């Protein structure tokens, strides 16, 4: 047990260790990725605190609000960062300082920057070359087709939209057909069509027996591709296991959702009468902040209402405050 000062200044004891394994046939023996008593701190700030879990084949969602420690956990799984204490193993080996591990591991990072002077195809080819693949062309074209980027693969990445950059990063991470795939917020910046394609791809990868870990801070998103989830809040493992069981706990509390639209007042009026909506207000930036007890029903309701009223939707996102409070509830339990 150790005590470190948190970012918010509070002193907090590390929680009791949670030892879980998620994925198909979830047992400790089946775990491809294992974290054992892993902590990571930067000076006085604890990013990940005494976390233990195993992840087996299938799709596992790594869920938590922004700044919860999801990205740090993924970076440690990928060997980009060393844990301050504890151990991380991929297929029984530490990924840190062990380049051969990367023959079987692909990471889609959260960072947007990719070499802007390369074409999408050049970037995927670069990844394939550095993986030592021979012959290259077949693997490169297969990876580009996986993310449906054939028509844009010849264009410079510098001219790509955010969603296209995300997809070409996925292609780069999958070109060597790894069995372990780590994705950090891969749906960020994608439009609804791209999002649906990526979600389908993630599910197919999981169904084919690969170990896929996808981080997200959006509950309804994770539900669409992951059967199993790990919830990280304030660097601690708050909950783990089957999505539905955790969902029941989460749904017991209201969620706040932020909506940007072309006519917030009319849309707000339309939402007020709906049973899934508990409260609606408009903030200083003319955005609707709606409170709901049934997120899924709410996310179905908003586009329908907007379409009926011919209002354009620019953003429908859970507020960070709402996510933190919902996830914190799991820790308290």
């Amino acid at each position, binding site marked *: 047990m150790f005590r470190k000062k948190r970012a918010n200044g509070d002193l907090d004891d590390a929680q009791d260790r949670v030892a879980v394994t998620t994925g198909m046939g979830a047992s400790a023996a089946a775990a491809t990725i294992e974290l054992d008593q892993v902590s990571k701190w930067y000076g006085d700030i604890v990013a990940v605190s005494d976390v233990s879990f195993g992840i087996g084949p299938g799709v596992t969602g790594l869920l938590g609000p922004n700044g919860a420690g999801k990205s740090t956990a993924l*970076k440690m799984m*990928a*060997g*980009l*960062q*060393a844990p301050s204490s504890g151990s991380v193993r991929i297929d029984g080996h530490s990924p840190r*300082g062990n*380049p*051969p*591990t*990367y*023959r079987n*591991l*692909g*990471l889609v*990072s959260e*960072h947007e*920057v*990719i*070499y802007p*002077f*390369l074409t999408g195809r050049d970037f995927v080819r*670069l*990844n394939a*070359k*550095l*993986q*030592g693949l021979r012959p290259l062309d077949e693997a490169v074209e297969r990876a580009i087709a996986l993310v449906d980027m054939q028509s844009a693969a010849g264009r410079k990445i510098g001219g790509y939209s955010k969603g296209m950059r995300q997809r070409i990063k996925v292609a*780069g991470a999958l070109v060597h057909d790894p069995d372990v795939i780590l994705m950090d917020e891969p749906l960020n910046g994608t439009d609804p069509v791209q999002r649906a394609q990526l979600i389908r791809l993630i599910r197919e990868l999981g169904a084919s027996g690969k170990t896929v870990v996808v981080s997200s801070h959006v509950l309804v998103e994770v539900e669409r591709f992951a059967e199993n989830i790990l919830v990280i809040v304030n660097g601690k493992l708050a909950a783990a296991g089957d999505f539905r069981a955790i969902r029941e706990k989460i749904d017991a509390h209201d969620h706040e959702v932020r909506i940007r639209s072309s006519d917030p007042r009319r849309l707000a009026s339309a939402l007020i009468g709906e049973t899934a909506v508990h409260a609606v207000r408009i903030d200083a930036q003319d955005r609707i902040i709606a409170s709901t007890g049934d997120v899924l029903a709410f996310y179905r309701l908003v586009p329908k209402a907007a379409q009926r009223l011919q209002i354009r939707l620019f953003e429908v996102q859970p507020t960070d405050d709402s996510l933190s409070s919902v996830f914190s509830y799991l820790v308290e339990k």
Partner: protein
Amino acid sequence: MSLTITILTIRQFLRSRSIYVVLGISLLASVLAVIVQVTPGEMSIRDLRDIFANVLYQDLIAATLLPLATLVLSTAAVGDEIEDRTLQYLTLKPIGRFRIVFEKLLAVIVVMVPIVWLGIAVTWAIVAFGNVDALRNLLWPALASSLVAIVGFGSLFLLLSMVMQRALLVGVFYVFVWETALSRFLPGIRSISIRHYTQSLFVRLVDDRRVDVPQLSAQSTVIVTTVAICVVCVILATWRLRSMSLE
């Protein structure tokens, strides 16, 4: 070895502003050479040889311009990738860290050599204008000895960019304080300065008693020392890359 990282880094350099800065620094001596040529007054062959060999090459190019130009490109080779977080596209591959460092250094050398040689050749051509035969034997020693500076400074500054965030600033301080000032006046420091070995090789190759440097080192010493600096820096940079945490 396919040199994929070297080719990628060269493409990065050719599209960055650093390349224009390096080109500008390398051509600075040519501007001074033009000023010398257009200044009224007759200059003897001896004066012209002295201006190119001692003033422009030894005191300006080898002492200041070469280390500065190499600093700009070497710190960009890995430092820029750490800063914009693209280095993970290389480190998350089943390749040794030594290969990444080696190929990055190779890219620095491949890009630096033609630019530096262009600057030296243009400077020489301006000074030697109308007296080419008399200054002919100064050109190739300058080109050959500049390789010592490119390899030595290149590996040193590549390492520097991997151990500290403000490598460019620290590098400029090192160039002006250590290589340009201290090593020129303090005998002990002279022998641990890359500038000194660059100048020593130049003087040895020119073989003219009017072209000299204090505490002249032997050619073999220059080569062994340059290789040693390069090997040590690459080993340390490889170790650093292994232990580095990346965002």
